[in-house]
């Protein structure tokens, strides 16, 4: 069973030549089978947490540690982290012109699994996963994320999540910008992965709506670059009723 451990993580970003601190000491443990929701207002550093764990070059780790099953993730390149079992569903998935979805998925699966999946089984696997997410089969021949609607991009992220079966999945605002039907489909996909019990999920969101469809085991309130409150699912209800205001004031 995999464990992601984040200890006293401090991260800064380069802003006009000066290092601007964003994360100020994050502590969090996510185990396979658990679902953690990180909720916070815009600008609180939630996405920075997601991207710095994934290894985006824009962010500098100034102190702290992130380990997956004891292995130091911060020492690894972006692709090594993914192969170690990390997955980041992005808020704004990137267009890659000229690279077809089918080629991309197979290349990624080959990298993650360490060998090329058997073609016949793979085609079936992708087809079924696409059908479950209501993705048109013609989609496979389109360029990655190019000309996709917001909903298509998010479904494509969840398709990858289902195919790559990571140890730890970080979902960065996967719910934002989705209509209710798309939100349900995407949530069902995430729940299928959770039900395997083999993936730990870190759900980063600004809105409480998605928590009606994906029930977290733990809720963390994120303000000013760190976790300021922790609790069970009831904390989400509290946030829905009262908003972040109380926590923002307390953090200042």
């Amino acid at each position, binding site marked *: 069973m995999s464990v992601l451990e984040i200890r006293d993580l401090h991260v800064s970003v380069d802003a006009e030549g000066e290092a601007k601190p964003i994360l100020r000491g994050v502590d969090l443990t996510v185990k396979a089978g658990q679902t953690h929701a990180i909720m916070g207002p815009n600008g609180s550093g939630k996405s920075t947490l997601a991207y710095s764990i994934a290894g985006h070059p824009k962010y500098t780790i100034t102190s702290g540690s992130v380990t997956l099953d004891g292995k130091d993730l911060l020492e690894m390149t972006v692709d090594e982290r*993914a192969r170690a079992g990390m997955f980041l569903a992005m808020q704004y998935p990137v267009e*890659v012109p000229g690279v077809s979805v089918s080629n991309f998925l197979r290349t990624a699966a080959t990298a993650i699994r360490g060998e090329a999946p058997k073609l016949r089984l793979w085609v079936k696997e992708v087809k079924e996963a696409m059908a479950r997410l209501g993705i048109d089969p013609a989609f496979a021949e389109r360029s990655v994320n190019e000309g996709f609607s917001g909903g298509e991009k998010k479904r494509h992220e969840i398709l990858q999540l289902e195919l790559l079966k990571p140890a730890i999945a970080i979902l960065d605002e996967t719910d934002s910008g989705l209509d209710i039907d798309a939100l349900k489909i995407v949530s069902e996909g995430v729940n299928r992965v959770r039900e395997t019990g083999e993936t730990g999920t870190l759900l980063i969101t600004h809105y409480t709506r998605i928590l009606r469809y994906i029930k977290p085991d733990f809720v963390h309130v994120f303000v000013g670059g760190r976790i300021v409150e922790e609790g069970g699912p009831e904390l989400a209800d509290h946030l829905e009723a009262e908003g972040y205001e109380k926590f923002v004031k307390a953090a200042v």
Partner: protein
Amino acid sequence: MTTATFDEKKLQGAHSHGGAGDPLAPAKTRAAQIQSTNVDDFPKLTGREEEWRFTPLRRLRGLHDGTWKPAEEFPRHQLGVVSEDGLAPLPAGVTASNIKSTDERVGSILTPFDRPSAQAFTQAAESLLVSVAANAVVEQPVIVRLAGGTTEGAVFGHTFIEVGESAEVTIVLDQVGAVTLADNVEISVGPNARVKLVSIADWEADSVQLQHQKARIGRDGSLVHIAVTLGGNLVRQYFSAEFAGPGAEVESYGIYFATGSGAKTGQHFEHRLMVDHAIPDCRSHVTYRGALQGADAHTVWVGDVLIQAAATGTDTYEINRNLILSDGARADSIPNLEIETGEIVGAGHASATGRFDDEQLFYLQARGIPEDDARRLVVRGFFAELINKIGVPELQERLSQSIEDRLAKAGV
């Protein structure tokens, strides 16, 4: 079939028309330009001319100033359709012949507006004529292969392609081997005809080519022009398009990959385009993509689009993207859009030159794909999109492989 259309005989006094006041001048900004089929009407190039400032004239072997040496060996044409053992005869509806430069078609579309083009016009006594009959629907791509044998001595050529009303055809100008060449290509797209012209410059290492291509597209006609430049030491291609009636359109795509070794003799690939909208309700789209690898690789892209006052309802867009794979390479990219009427559907241009997109690499790597593989995917995708527009599988394979080999050499 094999025909020779290159001739060392000098043809003097070719018909000359046009000039400064010509209403068909390719651009208002060029209205003052000399237009003539006679080389003697043009001053020798010095390199100080705006249009030649990027081109290393010393590598032109005298094509620019009359000091070129006549060749003793001439390139050969081979025409046909792709078959298992080379080229099969031309299909029904397509004919090829040589015509004299005095034929009224020659020069009816393109009047040279620079010295090497006029030099080619003056030197070439004959033109290859490829004709596609009206209403012919030609299923198989027609290959017009030009194979050069040596870079020793300069050769000059002329090609005239005429496609009749409502015909549909794909023609591939496949330029291979070794040459020092200046040539002109005229393309007449009949009313309602649909033409795809794939123009490949895949010359051997030391080759030099200065080429002008000009297309006139008839009412409701469509031309898809795909220029692929991979081989040769210096290739400078000028593609111009104009419309003869409303409802016509041109899509112009280009792929180039220049490599350099740092010895100041890296590949120089220069593409200049001029789309002249003088007729209402025509459409044009231009996408050129290039990659550069190695010190002193140099590419130039200058895309001019002119929308004249009469050309209401015009819809145009042009974009050039360059991917710089290593230090020391240089890509010049200049889109120009000149608009004389506001009553248009759309007009836009864009240009981007840079290294790999970090966000693309991050996205791919975040899915476990190693950085090298991610770069490979991105750069192959960059070209694959345009290569797939060619629609001739054998050719797509050959060009993809050629690009593949270069990337492998470049360590990408």
